[in-house]
């Protein structure tokens, strides 16, 4: 198995004035290709900070972080942009779609910066939207979509450039149970197809859809265990819950 993520003693310190906040205090973690990891922990324990470091949106203060075998600490801003574009798909709690921009154009965006020609871009974006069940909402703007649909657009956007890693920071945080289950169904399908997924959640039952649960406290990993009774999200179950 290939190791997609390897973290060695990663720390992250925020400075506000002369106050120092240690968001990460020496994280050691390895995640294999094809894994599906749920990160849990109390609020303020450093989960989002950790996701931002993994997603190359932020740089660690110290420690070494290898993504897909490459040391990230040496990369400059533009190299990080290219890594984010080619290797990582990010799904945010608040969707982060471009307003006044149609679903298909939102999904095209990563391909735009990857330099994919217009025609292929459109085809791949439509394909990605179809794969999350939004083939009939291509032209809708974000404010013309429900929360669950917006989250599915952002998943399509995260997937469209075939990243090695899918990151989701509380993707179901703003959604109801039924919609959450639909989203988890999509994640499980993607993982079954081989995609490595890391997901942050506060809800224990959402975490049980993953293969492994990593627990955080005070900026450190306190446990890293396989899920014993794994749950499967099906669309029928989602219907029943609704």
């Amino acid at each position: 198995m290939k190791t997609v993520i390897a973290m060695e003693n990663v720390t992250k310190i925020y400075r506000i004035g002369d106050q120092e906040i240690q968001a990460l205090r020496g994280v050691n973690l390895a995640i294999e290709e094809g894994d599906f990891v749920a990160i849990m922990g109390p609020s303020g324990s450093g989960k989002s900070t950790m996701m931002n470091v993994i997603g190359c949106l932020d740089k660690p203060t110290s420690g070494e972080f290898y993504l897909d075998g490459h040391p990230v600490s040496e990369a400059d801003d533009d190299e990080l942009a290219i890594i984010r574009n080619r290797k990582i798909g990010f799904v945010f709690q608040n969707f982060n779609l471009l307003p006044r921009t149609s679903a298909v154009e939102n999904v095209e965006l990563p391909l735009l910066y990857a330099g994919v020609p217009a025609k292929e871009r459109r085809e791949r974006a439509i394909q990605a939207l179809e794969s999350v069940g939004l083939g009939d909402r291509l032209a809708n703007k974000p404010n013309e979509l429900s929360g669950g649909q917006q989250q599915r657009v952002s998943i399509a956007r995260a997937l469209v450039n075939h990243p090695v890693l899918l990151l989701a920071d509380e993707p179901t945080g703003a959604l109801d149970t039924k919609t959450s289950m639909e989203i988890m169904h999509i994640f499980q399908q993607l993982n079954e197809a081989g995609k490595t997924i890391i997901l942050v959640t506060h809800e224990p039952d959402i975490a049980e859809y993953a293969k492994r649960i990593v627990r955080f406290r005070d900026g450190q990993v306190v446990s890293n265990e396989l899920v014993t009774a794994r749950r499967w999200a099906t669309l029928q179950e989602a219907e029943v819950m609704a």
Partner: protein
Amino acid sequence: MNFWESVRVSLRSIQTNKLRSFLTMLGIIIGVSAVIAMVAIGEGASANVASQINGLGSNLLIVSPGQARQGQISLGAGSLNTLTLADAEAIAQNESVAGVAPSINGRAQLVWRNKNYSTSLEGTSESYLQVRNTDVQQGRFFNHLEVKERANVAVVGTEVVSNLFGDAGANPVGQTIQINKIPFEIIGVLQSKGSSGMTNNDDKVIIPVTTAMDRITGGKNVGTIYVSAVSAEQMALAQADVQATLRARHHLKPKDSDDFQIRSQTDILSTAQSVTSVMTALLSGIAAISLVVGGIGIMNIMLVSVTERTREIGIRKAIGATRWDIQRQFLIESVTLSLLGGIAGILVGIGGVLLIGKLAGLPTSISLPPMLYAFLSSMLVGVIFGVYPARKASQLKPIDALRYE
């Protein structure tokens, strides 16, 4: 991201803020259109002046009496009466001189039957047509014999024809009119030259200079002597010959200064052009200032836009936009704003020029170079004043930009 994608994105963001974008462009629009209009009017005026000067004649030298001086104070050109008909005849003897037309001016009261008309009168010689580069459109001009015999013949302008005979197309040749109560036979009509500025070139009557001196104006001196050189190359030689002839005839000693003045068309033209170039410099100054003001407006709105769209910048960066991608997007946006302003300014300017030309009857000349300059400099303004906001946008950290509320 390729260039056209960036253009599309910027056009869209301009479109979503139509009023704001328009107000931003207004500075550039006003500046550019004002400059376009003023240049067109300025060029129209100077082209008009140039054509008037060229219309005076071909290879023309204008000899006028010198300036009388009291101590250091000049009393102005023409304040001496030093030129005579004999001077004109002597000048004509030079090889370099093709023709000489002395000129004496006055007012004349014309009467035909019961019609009465006041116009300007010029006395000249038979060389007038050649020297002043014109022709008669009806009848003929007077000849050497008629000048010598002080004949009572007159050539009139079309304005005179229409005022005395009812319409400009009437044929007055052969009619007898009274000029200051003396009967003259009309033998020709001068070619119409139209009006230039304040003066109507067709509103005059021309008679032999000898007749004019004898019967109308009196006196022994002529006002101006128009001399045409045989060719453009011989202008300098002709000027020297005229000077030598007149100095000899006026018995001037080597240390005396000329008691006459010789100007060529090129002298007059270059004076007029130096006036125009001062005006052009002034206009360029105004243009530069208005473009800078417009540019500051663009920079201001771009900075606002960067702040407003911090989140958008964060999203774009999070999914892989490089610094240059972001910088280019905002640069293209500011250039698009300034270029649209520039183009609108050019259109408004042309419209204004056409309107002014129509309403005020001013001569205007719309030419390409000022528009090209306006286009290029508004583009430049977009780049210069867009760089800082664009850099600012591109340097945002993705994580901070995403968190921005």
